């Protein structure tokens, strides 16, 4: 005993050491520290057994988080089932998914609003350190750049068990805490982080002075000087030599562009080349070699060459010669200002009425930005034509007339083109950025836009293989983070986290309603809201409870698929497509594989067995997705979680099949060009047949009986959000949303792909186009899918599963392709422009969720706020696909 014992005289009794020990064991003889330790035990036990997570999800990982909360994994066993909608009641934030710059201020705000003690779990690679999307321009390289993280759960996405493992790790951490040292009982907790500001980029206000200084030094520009930049190819030229050739817009651009154009024109005019496109011009790094050209066709099922020529002839007769020319199986409209008349003609006066705008996108060529419109007719489906309109390549020059008045479905797509390419649309009612925020510097999809972490025009990056020294992308940026600010930026003093440039100006105008004449006000619903199915926001103008205006605000999960996809090799994009609509990775794979196979032609025709496997996987996906969709629609309607949990059970069993065959529950990455990646493991087909034949019908029936005639359900859903057939077509909706309005348009029938023409299934349509019909269509579609599955599993042939040799170096001929698949959410399209190199020159995703949202305002007007929630659920959006 080195410590002298201080004994007060009146207590000075000498105790027998044996007795002393006995006393210490059986009677409480302790000091303050030890006493508190005992309190700690109870205190920590109490806290760790009642962790209330904040109910918010960001991306793919959020789905696994919801699965963790569902019956199979049952997070309730850990006392963490009480997902709170309000940060004020939550004490653990599971950052589940990609943290985008657009979302970051909201996350910081939510974190600040959580009371102490609070914990953060970074779930998945994206939340931990940026993940696969790290190189994107709108992605924060890990939530720990802003928030203190307690537990990291690696994986992409982590399985639900992995998240449970993370929660157990957090519980262990809590067990080790000491009440006497916990900071939240002391006054000195420094917890509020300044909300980062959305300026020309996401700016962390803690380092704003340093950022300003480094920006002024021009370090980013200096670095970019040294980098190899993407090369631009010239826009495709007419197949037949015409007198004038495709007219280009008046050259008003700066001299540099004129030079480039002159150079391009000079080389392209050389007479010995039959296809000017075949030889890349002004492409220094690309070696001049013979590039194979893909067959010119806009998409697999289309109007056909002779009919197109016929159509072009009629249009030239109508609007004067050389109004349109045929360029690579597309109609090039020489003068953009003629676009509205031509569109009206196609929609109203042409014998085949092209009333359905399938997709609208843009490509940045060397000499022009080309807008590409794909049109189809719902009355005579499968007659797709492609319109091309060109505008000046220079930034901020030229405008194209908007076609919103003709096809209202162009609304969001034109805004997207504006946001990504900087193309102005004259006459667009509300031309604002849609995915990025107002004030963001740069037009991301222009070829001359380089991201902060830009390393090279195409993958593979040399740094990975030449000198394999590991570095983090942060080291590439002078700011040490994913940030790039134009050198001339001046508004440092005005930066504030409270400014909300995203969606600030998107205030719905409001319509007149007669019932109430109270003051109208605007509610911002989201981006963190339990019923917005992800990080989606609506600016709703209400009169009382009645919605009189609604503007969706999106982009909170914009993770730059298309930009990254233009750097990836063709194969690399396959796993990225998994993460678009993360419920339907097999369907996404399908669409992408079809696009590349269209370019590759016959050499990539999948063998029979592969075709069957593809259909089986796609239809299983449809059931899994519709199950989830119905379950969560009911959640939105207030039937909290019973139907959802029932539906998730079936989805889980299907996910087991996916994991068994493809290796991952959600990110299957199963398709390859010309087939599939792996053959089925032994026993798979039998188990799948059992589930399909013996279980799914029964469970769908049960769901049907549980819900379809439920009076509350009928009351909430009948005649809510009616979309007439005309509206649904005009607004470019697709999938169950379109069919519920009575339009018989299913890509599997309208433009058959793969082997769908062999199966007997009905296209389910609804009579009224209301919320109920959208629900019921999905339910019935599941039955049709089961029918297809039964036949496919019965007839599944043997044989090879991949055409040709398995290779990672895909040779894709130059050309354009637009593939369409009927994904559970609607028509999923991939528009790919290949220049014959190893990467796609342009890679655009026509996302059904994004386009279906165009119809949201029309559906919601006149209904109440509570109906908005249900209507959004009936659209079945997935934010990974909306924002891409």
């Amino acid at each position, binding site marked *: 005993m080195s410590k002298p014992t201080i004994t007060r005289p009146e207590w000075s009794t000498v105790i027998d050491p044996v007795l002393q020990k006995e006393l210490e064991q059986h009677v409480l003889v302790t000091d303050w520290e030890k006493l508190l330790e005992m309190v700690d035990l109870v205190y920590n036990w109490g806290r760790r057994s009642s962790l209330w997570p904040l109910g918010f999800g960001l991306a793919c990982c959020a789905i696994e988080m919801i699965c963790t909360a569902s019956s199979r994994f049952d997070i309730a066993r850990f006392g963490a089932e009480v997902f709170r909608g309000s940060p004020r009641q939550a004490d653990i934030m599971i950052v589940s998914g990609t943290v985008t710059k657009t979302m970051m201020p909201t996350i910081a705000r939510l974190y600040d609003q959580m009371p102490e003690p609070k914990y953060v779990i970074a779930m998945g*690679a994206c939340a931990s350190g940026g993940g696969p999307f790290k190189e994107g321009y709108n992605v924060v390289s890990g939530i720990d750049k802003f928030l203190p993280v307690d537990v990291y759960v690696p994986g992409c996405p982590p399985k639900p068990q992995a998240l449970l493992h993370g929660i157990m790790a957090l519980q262990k951490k809590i067990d080790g805490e000491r009440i006497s040292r916990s900071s939240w009982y002391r006054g000195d907790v420094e917890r509020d982080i300044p909300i980062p500001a959305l300026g020309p980029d996401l700016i962390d206000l803690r380092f704003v002075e340093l950022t300003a200084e480094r920006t002024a030094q021009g370090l980013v520009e200096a670095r970019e000087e040294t980098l190899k930049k993407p090369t631009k190819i010239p826009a495709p030229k007419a197949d037949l030599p015409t007198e004038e050739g495709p007219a280009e817009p008046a050259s008003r651009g700066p001299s540099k562009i004129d030079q480039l154009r002159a150079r391009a024109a000079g080389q392209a005019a050389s007479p010995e080349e039959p296809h000017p496109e075949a030889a890349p011009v002004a492409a220094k790094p690309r070696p001049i070699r013979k590039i194979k050209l893909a067959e010119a066709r806009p998409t697999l099922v289309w109007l056909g060459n002779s009919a197109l020529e016929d159509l072009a002839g009629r249009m030239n007769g109508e609007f004067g010669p050389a109004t349109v020319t045929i360029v690579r199986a597309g109609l090039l409209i020489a003068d953009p200002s003629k676009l509205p008349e031509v569109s009206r003609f196609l929609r109203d006066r042409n014998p085949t009425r092209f009333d359905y705008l399938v997709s609208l996108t843009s490509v940045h060529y060397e000499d022009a930005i080309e807008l590409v419109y794909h049109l189809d007719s719902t009355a005579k489906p499968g007659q797709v034509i492609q319109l091309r309109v060109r505008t000046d390549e220079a930034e901020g020059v030229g405008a194209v007339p908007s076609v919103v008045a003709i096809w209202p479905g162009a609304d969001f797509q034109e805004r997207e083109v504006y946001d990504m390419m900087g193309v102005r649309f004259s006459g667009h009612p509300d031309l604002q950025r849609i995915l990025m925020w107002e004030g963001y510097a740069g037009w991301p999809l222009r070829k001359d836009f380089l991201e902060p972490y830009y390393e090279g025009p195409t993958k593979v990056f040399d740094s990975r293989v030449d000198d394999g020294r590991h570095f983090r992308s942060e080291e590439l940026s002078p700011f040490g983070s994913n940030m790039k600010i134009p050198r001339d930026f001046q508004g440092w003093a005005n930066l504030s986290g409270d400014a909300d440039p995203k969606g600030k100006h998107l205030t719905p105008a409001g319509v007149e309603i007669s019932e109430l004449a109270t003051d109208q006000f605007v509610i911002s619903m989201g981006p963190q809201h339990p019923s917005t199915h992800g990080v989606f926001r609506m600016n709703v103008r209400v009169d009382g409870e009645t919605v009189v205006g609604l503007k969706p605000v999106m982009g909170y999960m914009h993770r730059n698929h298309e930009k990254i996809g233009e750097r990836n090799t063709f194969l690399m994009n396959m796993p990225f497509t998994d993460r678009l609509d993360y419920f339907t990775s097999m369907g996404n794979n399908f669409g992408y594989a079809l696009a590349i196979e269209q370019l590759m032609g016959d050499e990539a025709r999948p063998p029979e067995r592969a075709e069957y496997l593809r259909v089986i996987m796609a239809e299983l996906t449809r059931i899994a997705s519709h199950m989830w969709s119905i379950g969560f629609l009911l959640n939105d309607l207030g039937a909290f979680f019973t139907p959802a949990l029932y539906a998730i059970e079936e989805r889980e069993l299907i996910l087991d099949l996916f994991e068994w065959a493809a290796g991952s529950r959600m990110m299957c990455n199963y398709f390859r060009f010309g087939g599939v990646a792996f053959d089925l493991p032994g026993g798979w087909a039998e188990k799948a047949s059992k589930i399909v034949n013996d279980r799914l019908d029964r469970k769908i029936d049960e769901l049907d009986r549980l819900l379809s005639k439920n*009076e509350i359900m009928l009351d909430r859903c009948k005649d809510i959000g009616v979309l007439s057939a005309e509206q649904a077509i005009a607004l470019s909706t697709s999938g169950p949303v379109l069919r519920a309005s009575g339009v018989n348009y299913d890509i599997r029938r309208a433009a058959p792909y793969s082997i769908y023409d062999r199966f007997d299934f009905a296209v389910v349509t609804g009579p009224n186009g209301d919320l109920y019909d959208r629900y019921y269509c999905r339910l019935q579609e599941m039955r049709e899918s089961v029918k297809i599955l039964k036949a496919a599993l019965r007839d599944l042939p043997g044989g090879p599963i991949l055409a040709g040799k398995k290779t990672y170096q895909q040779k894709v001929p130059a050309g354009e392709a637009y593939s369409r698949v009927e994904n559970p959410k609607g028509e999923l399209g991939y528009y790919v422009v290949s220049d014959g190199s190893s990467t796609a020159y342009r890679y655009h995703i026509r996302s059904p969720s994004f386009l279906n949202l165009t119809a949201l305002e029309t559906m919601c007007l006149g209904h109440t706020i509570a109906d908005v929630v249900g209507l959004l659920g009936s659209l079945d959006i997935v934010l990974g696909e909306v924002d891409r």
Partner: protein
Amino acid sequence: MTFGLGLIRGHLITLRRFVRTFLVGHGRTWTRRGGGHQKVDLWFGARTSGDEPIIAQDDRTEGLFTVEYPDERLPVFERSRVLPVLIYDADDGHIRCTSCHICAKVCPPQCIWITQARKSDGKPIALPSEFYVDMDVCMNCGLCAEYCPFDAIKMDQNFELSNYERHQSHVFTLQDLLVSSEYYERHHPDAYGSEDEVTERSKVAKKKAQRLAKASATPSEVEPRPV
């Protein structure tokens, strides 16, 4: 509208689910309370880690659906993939990777960094001297394993990877990535025994002796042998 009938029917369905949790209809045996159709396990005591019962759920699963991880486990499918690992041959301890860079070339988010080993005279040899996988970037897509011509990189199934720190531990080095071929065989029996891999292995084995002889002719700077 016959008000209420639909509601009552719905309640009967939920009630039926509840009952089926306890009385599963196939036979007279009681099944496990948590979903699977295995027999009920009344002596549910403490188990050592790694010895948990595996609950298989299939078309016959009714009633309660929960699998009580970590005390019970779902089956881990052989192809299930989380992070990549590098394989060394258990018999002689040599790593299979020849530093051909294909995995790095095929990696979509570019999370693999490789340095080829060199002899002291600077000649490259077919072994990696450094190999990094940044698991904060890795998307678990499995393309590296799929396209590796030497069966050297494979996807691991271990998902219990949570930790408290990422800057030191989430970049896996060569040593962190290595697992033995026995480990791989244990976790991927079907793939290991598949025709493709057997022929591949025999092909590689022949060349390996050659390759290693070449590599060790003069002592290399780095000798990446696992301990």
